[in-house]
Each structure stands twice: as structure tokens, then as C-alpha cells.
């Protein structure tokens, strides 16, 4: 199908190690988001990026979290020096534009930091 796909689906990382999570969004989608979902706390946006024919705009990363967008439909979320509190589901999502279009989500990457 032509949905949003994420890899790896499951990742176990030792505390202090760096982790990279990949997202392949839907072709043609402009805006790409990364969310973190934890039990009982809903989902919080980590970063977003927008791209058009002229430039990329990357969302402001938060501390140890950063996102790269080497191709228009590919994004990599990098978490440096993982902590146990980083254990969560990381959801990638994309949409056609910023306004009216629905956000489509991937199935998530489940990260466990031990």
C-alpha cells in the first residue's frame, strides 16, 4: 500500500546509546511530523518539517531529539543518549499541506530503553 511506514517496528536500546528511527511518508505529502506517545499522556509532537520546491524547513528539535529529512518522503528521528524515560511509541505522520488535509500516521516504532 501507499501508507506511512516506519522502521524498525520494535527497538530495544541500552541506556545512553543513540537510536535512529526511519519514516517513509506518503509520496506527495508536504508536512511530516514525529510524535511520541506514552501511556496515559496522549501524544506530543516532537518535531515537524515542511518542504516545497524551494526549501526544507525543519521543526525545532527538543534537546536530544532531532529529525533529518534526506529525501522529501523520508525522515529519520534521532535520539541521542537515550534515557529510560524515552521508552515510548514514536509515531510518524504526514499530510498534503498545513491546513485542511488529514494527517496520516504510521504504525509506530516501539522503543524500549533498558
Amino acid at each position, binding site marked *: 500500500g501507499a501508507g*506511512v511506514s*516506519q522502521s524498525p517496528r520494535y527497538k530495544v536500546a541500552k541506556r545512553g546509546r543513540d537510536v535512529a528511527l526511519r519514516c517513509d511518508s506518503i509520496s506527495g505529502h508536504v*508536512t511530516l*511530523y514525529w*510524535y511520541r506517545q506514552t501511556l*496515559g*499522556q*496522549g*501524544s*506530543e*509532537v516532537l518535531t*515537524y518539517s*515542511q518542504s516545497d520546491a524551494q526549501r526544507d524547513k525543519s*521543526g525545532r528539535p527538543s534537546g536530544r531529539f532531532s529529525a533529518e529529512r534526506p529525501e522529501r518522503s523520508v525522515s529519520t528521528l534521532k535520539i541521542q543518549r537515550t534515557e529510560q524515560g524515552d521508552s515510548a511509541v514514536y*509515531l510518524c*505522520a504526514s*499530510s498534503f499541506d*498545513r*491546513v*485542511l488535509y*488529514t*494527517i*496520516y*500516521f*504510521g*504504525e*509506530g516504532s516501539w522503543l524500549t530503553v533498558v
Partner: protein
Amino acid sequence: AQSVAQPEDQVNVAEGNPLTVKCTYSVSGNPYLFWYVQYPNRGLQFLLKYITGDNLVKGSYGFEAEFNKSQTSFHLKKPSALVSDSALYFCAVRVPPFLMGYQKVTFGTGTKLQVIP
């Protein structure tokens, strides 16, 4: 700041009965409202959205939601619940870009729907 509240952590309903999952919001300006469903070990799936127009919005799998501006609510409803509707439901609000620097989406904490056979 925008926020979304889902006051119930869990809703239990008997199969065949009508169901309601509550959502209230707080934003500056006109909200764009969404409902997503998450099945076990799956990502979020879009159910329906309200942008403008008719306050009653119909979505996937027989779900509908009613936008009530005076009560700042967007409750999710279904006339007759199915066991397969059991899942986690998230309400979300987006703020038009002219009010924010980017298309920020705020989610509620989720409501677990349990449909009892």
C-alpha cells in the same frame, strides 16, 4: 495555548447500545477537530474531522461526531456499538496556521472504549 480534554479514561458499553466518547477543547480561534482510533499494536487511524459547515460529521465505521461551539465539545458517537469497536480513541485539535507558526496538533490523552458482548 490550545488543549484537548477527554474526561473519561475508559468507557464501557454493551454491544448494540449507543456509545459516546467525550471530548472538549480550548483554542483561540476556529478549531479544526479530529478523531483518531488506535487498535492494539497499530498506529493511529483517522476516523473523521470537522473543519466547517454542518455540525454533525459522519466518518468511518459508522461513527459520527457533533461539533458544539457553545460547549466547546466534539463528542464521538455511534448508534449501535460493536465488539470490534473496542480500541483507544483520541480527540485532536489543530489551529489554523495564521495563528501559529506551524500546524500544531494537540491530542487528548485517549479514551479506552470497551464494548461488552
